């Protein structure tokens, strides 16, 4: 599993400016992680927690009005912020591939599959003629498109949803990138098709050693696919560590509550309920952003933003009570969540 560090994100900060700059929204606030070859990291959290903005910041694809205001993104040691637009264009698709949620929106309805799948290989790898055709056929085969010679002359509307998403995967792999960012790639797929697709991504990863960043709100996907998980809340990392450790004993009250609020197959146990709403990013509390909803909050929680503390090997949690709560067993799975 261990390989060279491909991507090193350090203290990334991204802001959105609204109303002519009179309102500043910090969508990403000090996010750090590394991704090694062959590794899969899951970015999880609810809507607006900054997981997609983190990815767009890495790809330098932020919309107008948003900009990276701090931190660095290193791809194999190169600072992506220092690259010219032209150089960055070479990184996108070639070194970092992307798979988006809605394959109907990410494929061009006017071009055949061949034209779309070949594009990265054509532009970034310089393949032409027979070699290019071979590459496209092998990619379509690797994502299990039946009879690729026939299918590659067809258009996206002739494909099912699962096939379209596999085509999007083939395009992401076309130029053999080192990293693939998959942003909710299976949200629009049916259960059996989703399982097939996730297994396919895993086997492609085994074959190519690509590093995967999985953006999702679905904890089941993280359990199935990821080595590491980073739980985000209101733009900040609240917990980060190996999936087994985080799922086995979440150390941040939000991560813990999130894990326990998911229905379990065949279980009638009442769900753990986090009351309240995620905070408004334009108006964050001065301390821990989860403090107003946290069952374990104490006065100190509201005073300063808690730092990420090491709670285990490669496992960090941004809760000042992590150690104390773990010792008391309060944040452990199965506990009733209440505290003395």
């Amino acid at each position, binding site marked *: 599993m261990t390989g060279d560090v491909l991507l090193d994100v350090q203290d990334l900060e991204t802001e959105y400016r609204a109303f002519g700059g009179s309102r500043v929204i910090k969508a990403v606030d000090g996010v750090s992680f590394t991704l090694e070859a062959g590794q899969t990291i899951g970015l999880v959290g609810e809507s607006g927690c900054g997981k997609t903005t983190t990815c767009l910041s890495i790809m330098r694809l932020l919309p107008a009005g948003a900009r990276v205001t701090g931190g660095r993104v290193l791809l194999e040691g190169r600072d992506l912020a220092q690259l010219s637009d032209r150089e960055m264009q070479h990184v996108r698709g070639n070194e970092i591939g992307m798979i988006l949620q809605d394959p109907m929106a990410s494929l061009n309805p006017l071009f055949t599959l061949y034209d779309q799948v070949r594009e990265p290989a054509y532009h970034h790898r310089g393949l032409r003629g027979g070699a290019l055709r071979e590459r496209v056929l092998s990619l379509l085969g690797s994502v299990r498109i039946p009879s690729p010679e026939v299918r590659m002359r067809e258009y996206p509307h002739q494909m099912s949803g699962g096939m379209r998403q596999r085509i999007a995967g083939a395009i992401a792999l076309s130029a053999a990138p080192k990293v693939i960012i998959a942003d909710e790639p299976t949200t629009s797929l049916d259960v059996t098709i*989703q*399982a097939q697709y996730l297994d396919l991504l895993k086997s492609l990863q085994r074959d190519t050693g690509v590093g995967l960043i999985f953006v999702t709100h679905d904890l*089941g996907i993280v*359990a199935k696919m990821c080595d590491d998980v980073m739980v985000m809340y209101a733009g900040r990392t609240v917990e980060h560590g190996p999936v087994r450790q985080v799922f086995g004993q979440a150390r941040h009250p939000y991560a813990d509550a999130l894990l326990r609020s998911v*229905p379990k*197959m065949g*279980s009638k146990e009442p769900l753990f309920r986090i009351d309240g709403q995620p905070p408004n990013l334009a108006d964050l509390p001065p301390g821990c952003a989860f403090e107003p909803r946290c069952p374990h909050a104490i006065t100190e929680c509201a005073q300063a933003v808690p730092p990420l503390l090491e709670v285990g090997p490669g496992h960090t949690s941004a809760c000042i009570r992590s150690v104390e709560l773990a010792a008391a067993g309060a944040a452990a799975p199965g506990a009733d969540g209440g505290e003395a």
Partner: protein
Amino acid sequence: MTAEPLLEVTDLVRHYPAGKGLLGMGSSKGVVKAVDGVTFAIGPGETFGLVGESGCGKTTIAKLILRIEPPTSGRIMFDGRDVARLTGKELLAYRRSVQAVFQDPFGSLSPRMRVADIVGEILEIHTSMTPAAIATRVGEVLDLVGLRPDQARLFPHEFSGGQRQRIAIARALAADARMLVLDEAVSALDVSIRAQVITLLEQLQADLGVSYLYIGHDLATVSHLADRVGVMYLGRLCEVGDSVTVSTDPRHPYTQALFASALPHLPDDADAAREVAVPVTGEVPSALNPPSGCRFHPRCPLAEARCSAEEPVLVQVDEAHHAACHLLPLTVGRR
């Protein structure tokens, strides 16, 4: 099942004529068998869950029950009356009793109406309450779903997704509905908000005794909410039973594949699931000209000659557990 079912669906069929091409020219391509012979019943205070993948006909069943569309054949009985025959006042009373909550709380609430009018409208239509009484009742149901009565003067855009879904539930319950059709009612919500709404639905059912037909594709949510669950494949029920039994001891190869495809709860479950996973390949065929015999046979790892020739019927495999498969004895413990 309780003695008298509140809703009883018998041999329900809904076929759609397939598109005749642009502007109705060209020859007809046959019929889409969206729902093709479905039977189930829901008791008072009970939750029946319908699961299945896109195009299996679960939403069509909701439309038929809500009388948005007429069935091609089959019967829907509500409280002992044939729904198809209801007219006038009786139909109005039926519409009052059976209410719906849809998936997208952004599309199902009028952006130009205040919450008071959205929730109050149903009372204006179905009761002769005075405006003052309606306002009081609106306050009551908002309180019931965990909103503040003073929020009645706000517009939907002033609420979050979870709060809007609460408004939709308040609207459905305002005129004392006896059954709610919940079509993917929590699918669009974030994880922590979804848990809030699921808990709310459970609590409302305990307090009010209302029945739910819960339609969804998320197996864990359906098996959590429902007392009994029906698994649909291409317009037919392939397995029906107690939700815990069906999710822990599925008998139909499709149900087994479906539950094996479900995402794990913990990373260790992922490894366990991998070993026993029933290989299911390919995609759901079209409901236009569905496969002969058992509709699942082209994808079924166990299929034999009989499966493509003869259509299996639901047979009892256990107390209150039915499955429609020719090879039932072979399927025990495959998961």
